């Protein structure tokens, strides 16, 4: 039997990352990060030493790719002017505040990892196997499409992040897709905690548990205020409701939120 702790979307939330690592390192045999280290939160350089110290195997997200290549935007895939306004603010801030050495490190991250564990092929990607910034929402992925993605990735278990909301689907073929959620901000449910995924693999079978991570969100809000990050971001950290980047949400996910 093997246990993997997998998370993504740190968004500079070093306090949530530290809390998640404290928990995950005692419960799992290995820890993986699916990318998007920066965005949204304060002082982006703080997450890097935490990942290094805990030996977290990390893949590259769209944000990491943008920072490393010095692109003009975060490639988050937002298209609405309301979403883009805030995406731009946090990208410009994160770009300015990420050290050159860390940008180089981000640039060297692999785009995917392929593991073979307990007879299962596990593939880790940021957005989807075919595109780093494709959104895999629970309510916009048919079973048929997920089966196709698993074929595409040559995997029995596919793990992704990028959307910010976790889900797990066991497919008719017996294969699995897991969106591990994000550590960076709560998932638009009015709760202030964030989530990571704990995968238990034994003898060709998989079970998935989502683990809530409570952290000192008031301290994070204070840091964000000190860095003069937008009040809308701080509100999300304190209330658990998304206030920005909402236009990309499909109907079901949007209808669950407050805004």
């Amino acid at each position: 039997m093997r246990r993997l702790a997998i998370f993504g979307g740190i968004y500079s939330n070093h306090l949530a990352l530290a809390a998640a690592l404290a928990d995950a390192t005692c419960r799992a045999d290995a820890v993986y990060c699916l990318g998007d280290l920066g965005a949204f939160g304060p002082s982006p350089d703080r997450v890097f030493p935490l990942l290094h110290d805990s030996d977290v195997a990390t893949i590259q997200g769209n944000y990491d790719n943008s920072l490393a290549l010095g692109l003009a935007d975060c490639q988050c895939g937002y298209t609405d002017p309301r979403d883009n306004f805030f995406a731009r603010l946090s990208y410009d801030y994160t770009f300015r505040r990420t050290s050159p050495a860390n940008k180089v490190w981000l640039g060297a991250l692999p785009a995917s990892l392929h593991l073979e564990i307990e007879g299962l092929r596990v593939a880790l990607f940021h957005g989807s196997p075919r595109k780093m910034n494709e959104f895999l929402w629970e309510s916009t992925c048919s079973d048929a499409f997920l089966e196709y993605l698993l074929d595409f990735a040559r995997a029995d278990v596919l793990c992704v992040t990028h959307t910010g909301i976790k889900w797990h689907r066991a497919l008719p073929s017996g294969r699995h897709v897991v969106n591990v959620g994000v550590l960076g901000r709560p998932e638009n449910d009015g709760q202030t905690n964030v989530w990571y995924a704990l995968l238990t693999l034994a003898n060709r079978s998989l079970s998935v548990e989502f683990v809530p991570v409570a952290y000192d969100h008031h301290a994070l809000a204070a840091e964000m205020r000190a860095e003069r990050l937008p009040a809308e971001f701080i509100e999300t950290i304190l209330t658990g409701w998304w206030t920005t980047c909402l236009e990309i949400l499909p109907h079901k996910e949007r209808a669950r939120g407050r805004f």
Partner: protein
Amino acid sequence: MIPWWMWGPEGSGQPLEILAAEKKRMNHPRVQLLHLDNLWFQVTGTFCNLACTHCFNGSGPNVSTFGFLAPADVERELGQAVRLGVREIFFTGGEPFLHPALLEMLEASLRVAPTTVLTNATILPEPTAARLAEIERASRYSLEIRVSLDSPEEAANDAVRGLGVFTRVLASIERLCRHGLLPLVSVVRDWPLGGEPEILARFTRLLSERAGYHRPRLKFLPVLPLGRELVRIGADHDEPFVTEEMLRGLEPDLLMCSNSRAVTDRGVWVCPLLVEMPDARLGDRLANAAPTYALGHRVCFTCYEYGTFCSNVSTAIEGAAPHAQRAPRPEP
């Protein structure tokens, strides 16, 4: 390596320069269906209770270019699409709610995939709104209801869409919202560059005050040089054709023809925009539809410019084309 947009039809083993030379329209680059992400059903053909001045497929009350789809045909193509790994289903027209079996078809579609219906929202009475909400709740997938509205001003909207339409649409949106549905209000852009924030604010005020929709989901669409709009803009219209040069380095999923197909009562078409163009008909049914298409129409340039505006996410209308935004960051 041959770039994605020059691959030959599956199994041909030939680069497209050679295949294209056999075709008359040899200058137009060919796009291959990479995967069927989106399947469109033109479920009521070109039958619509309105006749908007910018309708890209010229639908209207007596327009029989395309007819209604039989539910059995929808079911068959849905099954084939699922076998192909389809991601999302779209119902369009004409006006889909003119089809007597629309709700059953939406239900069947939502059993297998996320589903969107595009409507003018003039025939959405209370029982229909209630039923849509039920159907949505029963599915694990999203049902998107895309409602067209063209101006936050009654007179301007009705000049395009018909007298009295504005009031009826707002009433329908109010009904949908009251049942917990959040329609995606889609607006065809007719304002000058730079006007987007103001238009957004005006729509938001309107929908909040008149339909109780306080944080409305809005989607902007470019005007398409097709159908009635093409007649209306006439000589002003001078879009170039898409060239191979333009496609070089483009994200392969930017154009609908690389990931979508449209089903009508007269066969399968490369995309929902070109259903009136004889060369865009790819076969009788999905199972035998040709896998590639040469971009031989000026509207293809609109796709190239604006990206995947047919999908549900709002489209970045302001500024450059999406692919132009990938430019390196300017030095501070």
